[in-house]
C-alpha cells in the first residue's frame, strides 16, 4: 500500500519533470527538471533497496554532472531556444508515434517479464555499500580499473578541448 503510493508519487514527479525537460525551451529549466527526475529516481532506488546507488545518483549525477551542465549553461549564458516552424509530420505525428512506442514497450514488458513478487521496501538487502564494494573490487575489478582509465582519458580530453588556444 504505502509502497505503491510512494512509487506513484515519485514516478509522477519523475514523469512530470521529464516532460518539463522536453517542453521547456530554456536549457536551465530543462537542467533543473532533469535534476528533479534524478532526485525522484534516487528515491525509487531507495525503495528498490539500492542505498548505495541512490546515494551515488545524488552525489555523482545531481551533485556533479548536472552542476557541470548548469555551470556551462551559465558560462555560455545560453538563452531561450528559437522556435522554428517544424515539419508537419513532426508536429502532428511525433507525439502519437512516441506514445505508440511507449505502448509497444509497455506491452512487451508486461508480456515478456516473467511473473515475480512485487517490490516492497526493505525486501532487497544487497544494495548496501559493503556488498557493492565487495563485488566491485572482486568480481568487477577489471572493468572498474578500465573505467578509471576511461575517466582519466576523459579528463585529459576535456582539458585539451576546453583550454584556451595559446597563439
Amino acid at each position, binding site marked *: 500500500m504505502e509502497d505503491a503510493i510512494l512509487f506513484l508519487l515519485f514516478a509522477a514527479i519523475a514523469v512530470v519533470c521529464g516532460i518539463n525537460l522536453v517542453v521547456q525551451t530554456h536549457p536551465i529549466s530543462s537542467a533543473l527538471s532533469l535534476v528533479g527526475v534524478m532526485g525522484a529516481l534516487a528515491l525509487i532506488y531507495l525503495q528498490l533497496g539500492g542505498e548505495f546507488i541512490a546515494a551515488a545518483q545524488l552525489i555523482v549525477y545531481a551533485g556533479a554532472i548536472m552542476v557541470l551542465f548548469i555551470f556551462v549553461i551559465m558560462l555560455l549564458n545560453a538563452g531561450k531556444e528559437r522556435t522554428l516552424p517544424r515539419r508537419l509530420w513532426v508536429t502532428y505525428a511525433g507525439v502519437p508515434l512516441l506514445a505508440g*512506442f511507449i505502448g*509497444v*514497450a509497455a*506491452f*512487451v514488458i508486461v*508480456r*515478456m517479464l516473467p511473473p515475480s513478487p512485487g517490490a516492497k521496501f526493505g525486501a532487497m538487502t544487497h544494495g548496501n555499500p559493503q556488498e557493492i564494494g565487495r563485488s566491485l573490487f572482486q568480481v568487477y575489478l577489471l572493468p572498474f580499473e578500465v573505467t578509471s582509465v576511461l575517466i582519466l582519458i576523459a579528463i585529459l580530453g576535456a582539458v585539451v578541448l576546453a583550454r584556451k588556444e595559446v597563439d
Partner: protein
Amino acid sequence: MQQLWLIPILPLAGFALNGLFGRRFSKTVINAIAVGSVLLAFLWVLKSLNSLGAFSGGLEETHIEHYFTWIQSGALNINVDFAVDRLTAVMLMIVTGIGTLIHIYAVGYMAHEGGYYRFFAYLNLFMFFMLTLVLAQNFLLLFVGWEGVGLCSYLLIGFYFSEKFATDAGNKAFIVNRIGDFGFSLAIFLIAIHFGSLDFGSVFSQAKNLPIETSPGWITAIALLLLVGATGKSAQIPLYVWLPDAMAGPTPVSALIHAATMVTAGVYMVARSSSIFLHSPMALNFVTIIGIATAFFAATIGLVQNDIKKVFAYSTVSQLGYMFVGLGTGAFSAGIFHVMTHAFFKALLFLGAGSVIHALSGEQDLRQMGGLGRKIPITSIVLLCASLAIAGVPMTSGYFSKDLILESAYQYAPWIYWVGVLTAGMTAFYVFRAFFMAFTGEYRGNKHPHESPFVMWGPLAVLAALSLGGGFINIPKYLEPIFPVSEGTLPGFVSLTPAVFGFAGIGLAYILYVLAPGLPESIASAFRPVYTLLYNKYFIDEAYDSVVVSPTIDGSRSLLWRTIDAGAIDGTVNGVGKTARTIGGVLRHLQSGYIRSYAGWVVAGAILVVIVMGLKGVM
C-alpha cells in the same frame, strides 16, 4: 623454487634501464647497469645451480619451475616454464660466464664508440633472449628466445648503421635466418600436431616410447625441419653465408653472439631434441654429412682469407661443423663439450683479434700487421693460447673435445674421420698462419700499436686459462644421465692422428709464414685458379645472388608487383571503391547532415526491434 626467472629478467631489466634512459646516463652508470645485471645473472646461476646440486653430482632429474599458462587452446596447453637439467646447466654456465667476461671486455672496447648505451642495451637484450632459449621447457618458448637472439644479432650486426655493408650484413643474417626459422616453425607445428604438446617433458617421453626401427615418416620430417632451423642459426651449409658477413658488427658482438653463444643455439637445440633425432637415422646422417661438409668447406676457405676476423669467422663455421658431426654421429655430449671449449677459445680468438684491431685502431687486414708480438705482448700470448687450443694441441681444451668427436666419427664411418682429421690440420694451419702473420716478422702497417687496457686483457687472461685448461672439465661424464656415452674400443692411432695433423699444420704455417715468407705468393700463383676459388669463397655468395636473390627480385617485380598487385588487387580495390561510390550516391540522400534526423533513424530502428521482440515474445 629457485626463482630461475630472475636469471633472464635481470639482463632484461638492464636492457630496459639502458634502453629507456641510457641517453641521459653517464658511461659509468651504463657500464654498472649492463655489466652488473649480467654479472648478477651469472651469480644467480651459480647460486641456483649450487642449491640444485649441479656442482655436486646432483641434478640427475630435470628441475622444472612453472610460472603461468601462456596459451590454452583446446588440447594444446602451453606454459611458461623454465627448467634446468645438466645440459641446461652447462649452457647456462657458458652463456652467463662468457657473457659476463665479454661485457666487461666491451666496456673497454666500445669506450670510444658512439651509441654506447644502445650497444649495451642490445647486448643485455641478447642475454635475456639467449637465457630464455636455454631455460625454456617447451618448443614455443625456445622459439621465442630463438627469434629474439636472431633479432639482437641483426641489431648488433647493423650496429654501425651508417655503413652500408653493416646494414646489408644485418639484413643478410636476418633473411637467411628466416629460412631456417621457417623450417623450425614448421617443425614445431608438426610436433604440436603429432605429440599434442610442445612441452619437452611430454614430447620427449612420447618420442622415447616410439618404436625405434619402424619410426614413422613424420618424425624424420620433424627432425629434418629442426635441422633446417639449426643450419640457419648455426651457420651450416647451405645457410652459413650470413656468418662471415656478420663480422661487420663490433668485435665483442662477434665474440659473444657469432662465436660463443648464439650460433651454438642450433647445436643445443639438436642436442635437446636428441630423442627425436635418435629415431631417424636418416636425419642423423644428414646432420653428419652437413657437419663434415661445412667443416671441411669452411676450413678450405679459411686458408686464404686476409681479414683476421674473416679467418676466425670461417673457423667458427668449420668448428660448428665439427659439433654437428658430433651430434650426427650420436656423440651429443661430445658436441656440447665442443660447444663449451669452442666458446672458450673462439671467444678468446675474437676478443684477441678485437684487441689487435683496437691496438691498430681499426686495422683488420693481416697484411698490414706483423711483428706485433713485441708491441702488444699480452694480446699475442693469449692469442697463442687460443690458437694452440683450436689447433688441438694435446692437453689443451680443443684437443679433448675435437678428439671425442672424431672418435665417434670413426665409429660412425672412417672416411668422415679422415676428412675431419684433415680439416683439423687445415684449422691448425690457417689459425697459425693468421697468428704468425700478425705477430711475427716486421710490422708492415703504418699505425702506432698500443696495448689494450686492463678491462680488455683481464677477461682475455681468464679465457686463456680456460681454453688451455678447460678440457679437463669432463662434460661428457657430466652429461651422462642425459646422453649415454657409447663405449667402444678404438685403434690407438685414432686419438693420435688429429694431434699429429695439428702439429703438421702448425709447422707448415711456420715454414710458410716465418721461415720463407715469399713462398705463399709463389704457391698462390702456381695454383691460381684454386686460390681465386678459395679466396672468393667458392663464389657461393655470387651463386646465391644469381640463383636465389635476383630471380626472387625479378619475380616480385614482374609478377607480384606489375601483374598481381597493380592488376588484380588494385583493380579489385578500385572496383569496390566504384561500386561503393555508386551505392553511396544513392544513399547520400539520407545524409541530411542533421544529427537529429540520424537519431530519428536510430529510434525508428529501435522501435522496429522492440516490435519484433514483442511479437516473438507473444508468439
